[in-house]
């Protein structure tokens, strides 16, 4: 796993794990607080429920009080109820219906002292039935709020009931009234919208929903006037709908998940950015370091950073500088060693060339001494040998003369030089040029540059088997390390290429893979390029041809033609 990947994952973990723990902790704490708050509100609701129930009963009692006062002053009621006046009977029967509508009650009934219903609003036609249970129950409960289930024509009516007693002409009557204790009433009692109030009568559980949690209950006197008529007790059960809390928690979880996902995405993006930002200088350092070799110690490790990477870069720069210095010394040592070798080689070669000459001369000396008359003939016989040896030495001298030219840099037109060299090899394999327009002149010795080009182009042409393939010579302007401008010459052939081992030895003196080669070509080229302050790079692979890149410093001034 790369350093960048490790950095990425480490950043992700470093961000996400604490964040997840924080989210879970916050969620748990909010859940606990919500539950606790709900419990406190439920307890408060029980107290408020009792107060509100008593207040509702007082409202009903107040309405009954007003109605009873109206009845006491009502002549038609008096005529019907006391004197049994037949024409007023219909008025009496319908009185409770009208009064119930006006007063906003759901239950209203007038009974006489025997419990006989004189008028009923919620069940108009139950007149004359004797139902004393409800007034008796309400007399026992007194001012305590009480609930009763009474009969109507269709559905039973569950109501919060109370009674008002009054007398007309000395005869007692009771007015029973109430409001419906249905869902709307229970919602009105409920002081907290987060809670629910349900009524549990003796014959019903009354607690709605499987998702409800009972918070508390308030006992209320209850009479089922439809069945047993035995006073009992009902319960107003306050429940907290866990559905509400669950919905709240679901919303909380959803938002947590959303925020977690967003944060995770941001963390991933941040990790990617950080890892890239941190690893990029290291990658660049690695690339520069990988490009360093003895022939290329010009990598720029200058860094503005004041962190560890900047220090590392500067250390590498110092190391490169030391390497460069060492390489110069090494090159000088090599040069000296090579000169020694060369001297020995020259000595050897000259000796080799002089041996036939010495032998011919010794032979001619012997002929001149012993047979002078044949000297001409013998000389003529041995002249070719002398000529051959002299030619050999001449060739040898010219070869050695190429080894150490004296550099005299001037502004060279590289494109013109390339064209001239290419023309010299015309008639052989295909050589194409791609010369850049406006190419800067290179600061180089024309002779040395020509030798460099001749060698590299010759090697490229020689690499092509039987004239097949092509050689492309291109020039371009480039910037090295973002600073100085260089002139780049690239000679690309489509030959067989070289192995790594062959490439490692390609710059050695006298190493050659060509029949008749001197083994000095690339060695001379490298030295010439270095002497010109340039750089030489060989990129090759077996089967992929060879690419030789020469970079020379651009001369100040104009461009090539």
């Amino acid at each position, binding site marked *: 796993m790369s350093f960048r990947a490790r950095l990425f994952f480490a950043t992700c973990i470093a961000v996400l794990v604490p964040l997840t723990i924080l989210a879970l902790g916050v969620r748990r704490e909010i859940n606990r607080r919500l539950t606790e708050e709900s419990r406190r509100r439920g307890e408060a609701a029980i107290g408020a429920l009792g107060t509100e129930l008593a207040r509702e009963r007082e409202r009903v009692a107040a309405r009954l009080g007003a109605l009873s006062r109206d009845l006491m002053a009502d002549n038609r009621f008096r005529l019907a109820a006391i004197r049994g006046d037949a024409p007023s009977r219909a008025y009496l*029967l319908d009185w409770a219906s009208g009064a119930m509508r006006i007063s906003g009650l759901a239950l209203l009934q007038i009974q006489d002292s025997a419990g006989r219903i004189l008028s009923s609003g919620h069940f108009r036609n139950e007149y004359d039935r004797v139902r004393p249970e409800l007034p008796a129950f309400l007399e026992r409960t007194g001012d305590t709020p009480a609930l009763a289930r009474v009969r109507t*024509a269709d559905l039973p009516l569950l109501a919060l009931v109370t009674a008002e007693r009054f007398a007309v002409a000395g005869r007692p009557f009771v007015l029973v009234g109430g409001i419906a204790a249905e869902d709307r009433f229970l919602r009105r009692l409920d002081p907290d919208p987060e809670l629910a109030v349900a009524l549990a009568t003796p014959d019903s559980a009354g607690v709605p929903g499987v998702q409800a949690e009972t918070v508390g209950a308030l006992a209320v006197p209850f009479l089922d006037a439809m069945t047993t008529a035995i006073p009992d007790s009902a319960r107003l059960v306050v429940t907290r709908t866990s559905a509400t809390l669950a919905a709240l928690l679901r919303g909380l979880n959803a938002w947590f998940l959303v925020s977690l996902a967003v944060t995770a995405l941001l963390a991933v993006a941040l990790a990617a950015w950080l890892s890239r930002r941190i690893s990029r200088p290291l990658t660049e350092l690695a690339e520069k370091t990988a490009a360093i070799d003895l022939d290329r110690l010009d990598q720029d490790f200058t860094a503005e950073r004041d962190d560890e990477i900047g220090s590392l870069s500067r250390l590498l720069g110092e190391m490169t500088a030391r390497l460069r210095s060492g390489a110069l010394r090494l090159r000088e040592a090599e040069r000296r060693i090579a000169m020694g070798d060369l001297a020995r080689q020259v000595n050897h070669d000259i000796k080799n060339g002089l041996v036939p000459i010495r032998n011919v001369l010794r032979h001619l000396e012997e002929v001149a001494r012993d047979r002078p008359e044949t000297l001409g003939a013998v000389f003529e016989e041995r002249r070719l040998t002398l000529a051959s040896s002299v030619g050999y030495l001449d060739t040898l001298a010219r070869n050695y003369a190429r080894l150490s030219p004296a550099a005299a840099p001037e502004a060279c037109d590289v494109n013109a030089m390339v064209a001239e060299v290419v023309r010299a090899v015309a008639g052989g394999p295909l050589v194409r040029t791609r010369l850049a327009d406006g190419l800067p002149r290179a600061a180089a010795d024309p002779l040395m540059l020509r030798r460099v080009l001749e060698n590299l182009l010759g090697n490229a042409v020689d690499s092509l088997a039987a004239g097949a393939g092509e050689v492309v010579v291109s020039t371009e302007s480039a910037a090295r390390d973002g600073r100085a401008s260089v002139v780049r010459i690239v000679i690309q052939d489509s030959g067989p290429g070289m192995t790594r081992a062959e490439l490692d030895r390609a710059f050695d003196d006298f190493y050659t893979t060509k029949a008749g080669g001197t083994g000095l070509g690339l060695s001379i080229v490298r030295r010439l390029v270095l002497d010109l302050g340039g750089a030489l790079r060989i990129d090759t692979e077996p089967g992929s041809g060879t690419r030789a890149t020469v970079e020379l410093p651009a001369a100040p001034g104009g461009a090539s033609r």
Partner: protein
Amino acid sequence: MAPGTIRLVRLLCAAGCAASLAGACGGSAPEPIPQPETPPDPCLLPTGEPGSAREVVVVAARPQDSAFIAPRQPEPLIRLSCTAAAQPAAAQSWTSDSAGRTWTFVLAPSTAPISAPSVAAEWTTRPEAATTLRQAGVESVIALDEERLRVTMSSPSDSVPPVFAERTLSFVTDSLPQTGTTFVLRRPESADLRDALDAGADILRTEDPALAEYARHRDEFVVHPLPWSRTYLLIIPGARVELDGLIQGDDSAGFRAALARDAVHAEARGAERPYWWDGLGQCPGSDSLSRPRPRVLVDSNAVVFAAEDAVARALAERVVALSDNPRISTGSIPQRFLDPALSAASARAYVVAVPRTPLLPCREIATWPPDPRIVPLIDVRESAIARRGIPRLTVDFDGRIRPVEAP
């Protein structure tokens, strides 16, 4: 018996009574013979003069009200007055054989181009008419000529069978009333019909005593009680014998009178005998009657009534109030579902309204459950509220209001 014959008998009777009274006093100078007071026609609305043409605004608060004043009503063979007396309509006269089973009707000239053969053909081919004839026990219908129609009944009858006033045996003629009175139908703009009276209505029918009471306080209106037209029954399906205790009170006349007085907001009285369903016997073709059997879901503990009928609702509530079974309650269903529900007999009981005197009793009981217990409750009637001065009007047996033609 033809109307002309009835008038003749009345005149002879009046003359005979006058002669006997004169003979009893003897000798003395003849005093002016007191003219017998003509009893007021209970079917006549004492409004204005007969025949005075006018546009009469009729308020039709209920769907059935509009049918009573349609300008071109289907004409039955006979018309029954509000007291159920037979009067000529499409048939100008009728006679019967001595057994009272075969009745011969003579069509009035005004029915042209309707002829006796076309009437016989229509009655025997139109399903609705054929069913009515079968339920009425009509054995044959024969056209003797263009004007005379002979109908043979399965059972004898002293008077012309009222079934010939049935709507299903009516036919549209070209004749129009010659009174010149035009009825203008107006829908009430509010549920309170007093607003309609105050807005200029000339005539309306109501069963609301409060509305009649309001009209009585207005000098410009005449309130005329119409005949007792409907009887409310409590029908308890026979299989539910345990329901005998549904009404804790007795079914005496006092009980029914109390119901009429206290339980309903209508002009009512306790249901009075005779009850036409008693001794009705086997209805002809009752086995083949096609009873409507759509599924109507009702509570098995409910006392069911038609939701549109306030009187039935009040009676059902009283029945429930009188029951000590707390599970019994009222249950309302739309009027159009009442017959199917009654036929299904799945409820505890039903409060239904039937005609006080049906033209075709077998049709009325066609949807009753088998062997039901019938508890008569109350009779109700409507009142006609008419503006004084409008042309004199008369009321038929079925409640139709007609202008009285000028003599």
